[in-house]
């Protein structure tokens, strides 16, 4: 095995980890605050990818502008999902919540198939491949990673430096006590769903420059995102980032050493083992 190839795969793993972390953070943020797992979260990413695709191919929008539009559109979509589907079932049993957001997943997949058929659609951007010390790195991936890092920094500053961000963290800790401080938890849920949607929209913009979109895009990234979130510990933001990098490394480097399919097998086996050893997530402290 050429060590240069492995090094290249390792770097690609980190780059993929950035975008995955974005998704894991968005999903985790919503779970931590609203306490409902959005099974259909990555389906929102799929819709965002279509949004960029159609804006660019049909209306000839510049990719950057279309990407920003996707952030806004999916943020609004996130708020709508909360108001129409999540809010009415907030106090329902968890299994009903699971069925509702799972139902949304199938609805969005089928609706996308109905509208746009199962064709794989790609922007076919001619982005350069950079050669660094004998390794070939895709500019699109580097860009996606850099933007993901900036978005994570932005999210961190939002959650720690603003009052609404601080309130979001407080709601995830004690929603009854925060109400006594004059905070309407329902408004915090709406803001959180919007922010979570915006993260999905940004991930969509960063993924459409690397992958083609189809109605079942979520089937590839959805389970991976959930695995990462659970691996890092539900509600644990730092764990989500660590889990993303870990899993994307396993998949990327494992894919070079064996095959991509085998790498996914290894990743999920590792996940199952981790769940036996640390059911609360790899970064959980033992009481």
């Amino acid at each position, binding site marked *: 095995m050429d060590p240069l190839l492995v090094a290249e795969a390792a770097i690609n793993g980190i780059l993929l980890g950035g975008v995955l972390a974005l998704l894991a953070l968005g999903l985790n943020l919503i779970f931590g605050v609203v306490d409902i797992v959005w099974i259909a979260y990555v389906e929102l990413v799929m819709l965002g990818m279509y949004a960029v695709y159609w804006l660019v191919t049909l209306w000839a929008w510049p990719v950057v502008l279309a990407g920003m539009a996707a952030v806004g559109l999916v943020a609004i979509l996130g708020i709508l999902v909360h108001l129409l589907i999540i809010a009415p079932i907030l106090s329902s049993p968890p299994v009903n919540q699971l069925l509702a957001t799972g139902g949304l997943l199938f609805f969005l997949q089928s609706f996308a198939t109905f509208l746009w058929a199962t064709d794989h659609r790609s922007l076919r951007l001619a982005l350069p491949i950079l050669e660094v010390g004998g390794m070939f790195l895709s500019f699109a991936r580097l860009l996606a990673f850099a933007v993901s890092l900036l978005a994570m920094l932005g999210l961190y500053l939002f959650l720690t430096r603003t009052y609404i961000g601080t309130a979001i*963290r407080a709601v995830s800790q004690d929603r009854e006590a925060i109400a006594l401080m004059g905070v309407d938890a329902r408004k915090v849920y709406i803001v959180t769903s919007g922010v979570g949607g915006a993260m999905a929209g940004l991930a969509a913009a960063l993924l459409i420059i690397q992958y083609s979109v189809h109605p079942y895009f979520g089937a590839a990234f959805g389970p991976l995102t959930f695995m990462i979130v659970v691996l890092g510990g539900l509600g644990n933001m730092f764990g989500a980032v660590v889990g993303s990098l870990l899993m994307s490394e396993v998949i990327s480097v494992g894919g070079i050493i064996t095959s991509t399919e085998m790498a996914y097998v290894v990743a999920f086996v590792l996940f199952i083992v981790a769940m036996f050893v640390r059911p609360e997530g790899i970064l959980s402290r033992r009481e």
Partner: protein
Amino acid sequence: MLSLENVSRTFGGFRALQGVSFEVKQGELLGLIGPNGSGKTTLFNCVSGALRPSAGSIRFRGEEVGGLTPDRICHRGIARTFQIPRPFKKLSVLENVALAAHFGHMTREPDAAARARARDVLRLVGLPSDEAARPGLLGAAGLKKLELARALATGPALLLADETLGGLDLEEMRQAAGLLRRIRDEMGITIVWVEHIMATLMRVVDRVVVLDHGEKIAEGMPREVAEDPRVIEAYLGEKLVLG
């Protein structure tokens, strides 16, 4: 300032509060006592909006507040503390209080003003106001103070204080009781104070309301109430000790 009329609250078949009526006057420091399970905390929950009263009316400054959500009631000027402190452990002490200062008012305060007010309140209760102080490093007395500081930062006209002395040693109790008095005397905040530690409470409050099995059984000056046969019976024949 606060008037309760026939307030009742049932949980299934259990009547936690039955037709409780009393008034709290502006500037008063009112003690609310009663044996365990007599409905004190349920009453606080009804006034602060955590529970909707099953019947009756709760009027604050002339307006009905029964059934409003807790955040609305907070904006009207009622704050409460919890018996067991519930700080946001992952936030700093200052962030805990600044949140209350920012969101507790009808008109959101700008960033700097809310932070400055949070620092003032922390100084008043005697807690560190630097960015580094974490709730995890505070002891029992410190957490009680943080609970009070968060409530005060919302700028209340009425404070519902739930067992501010529980878990404190004698010196800390003396300080905490003194602090409640200062909050009333210097800030002009009306206080309803639920407490188990009777000797301290009876010395500090102006008036006492006694609940037993969800009903009001006595109301009056501490000394009168302590002599009331119904109160003595409720407390299993123990006469309340006045300091």
